[in-house]
């Protein structure tokens, strides 16, 4: 988290490049998704694009550290659909057992080591990906990653091993 009033750290050229890409991409993506040139849609599109650009600007401004997301780390997301499907199935079974009073659903917290850093942009990128991608699976909610103790705290209602995707991003169970 950034202290209030912290000015943009990280390379300004990257922020400028990101702003230019956003300015170009936001209206284009709107047109692509909406797929119409009706004036009322275009007016909403202009407002949405401006809001996107403003949000990106403030995110860049308040970010205290640069993030590098490498392609091999991003590719780890290919396992996500399976984790979502299998997690949904597991949870449905547990919820049904809980509802029918067969076996109460547990409330489990676990932690494991996680290779993170507050300085290395690649590790910061991996941490962000680990939190975002792992939390998508319904049976695995990452509560947080402590950068000083290098530990990941997560919640489950059915115990299972740390996903391979998260291990590839730095978890060490």
């Amino acid at each position, binding site marked *: 988290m950034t202290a209030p009033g912290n000015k943009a750290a990280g390379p300004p050229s990257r922020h400028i490049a990101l702003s230019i890409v956003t300015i170009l991409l936001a209206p284009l993506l709107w047109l692509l*998704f909406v797929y119409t040139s009706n004036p009322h849609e275009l007016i909403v599109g202009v407002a949405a694009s401006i809001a996107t650009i403003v949000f990106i600007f403030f995110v860049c401004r308040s970010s205290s550290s640069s993030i590098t997301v490498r392609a091999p780390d991003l590719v780890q997301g290919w396992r996500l659909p399976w984790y979502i499907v299998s997690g949904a199935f597991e949870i*449905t079974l547990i919820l049904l057992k809980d*509802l029918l009073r067969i076996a109460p659903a547990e409330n489990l917290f676990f932690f494991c080591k996680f290779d993170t850093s507050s300085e290395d942009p690649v590790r910061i990128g991996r941490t962000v990906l680990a939190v975002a991608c792992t939390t998508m699976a319904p049976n695995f*909610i990452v509560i*947080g990653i402590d950068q000083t103790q290098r530990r990941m*705290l997560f919640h489950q209602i059915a115990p299972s091993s740390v996903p391979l995707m998260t291990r590839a991003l730095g978890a060490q169970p």
Partner: protein
Amino acid sequence: MNPWLIAAAAVSASLVPCADMCLRGAPERRLVGLEMASLIVTIAMVLFTVGFGRSIFIDLPLALAIMSFGGGLVFARFLEKHL
């Protein structure tokens, strides 16, 4: 009634245990119920969209999937402060 709508009804039925989970217990349990419910609602909305032949409404489950993902992360960050 077509197979898509039958599938959507079956998927929607699994919202009942999620509702039970969301209404009882510790906040972390409720968050799991909420995440699961948003996943089910997204799938159900896609099935209803195809079932009723109104493909224009596919935007709704798409938006819900993105928003619920962000919402889950925000709730997790919020819970972290109380642990």
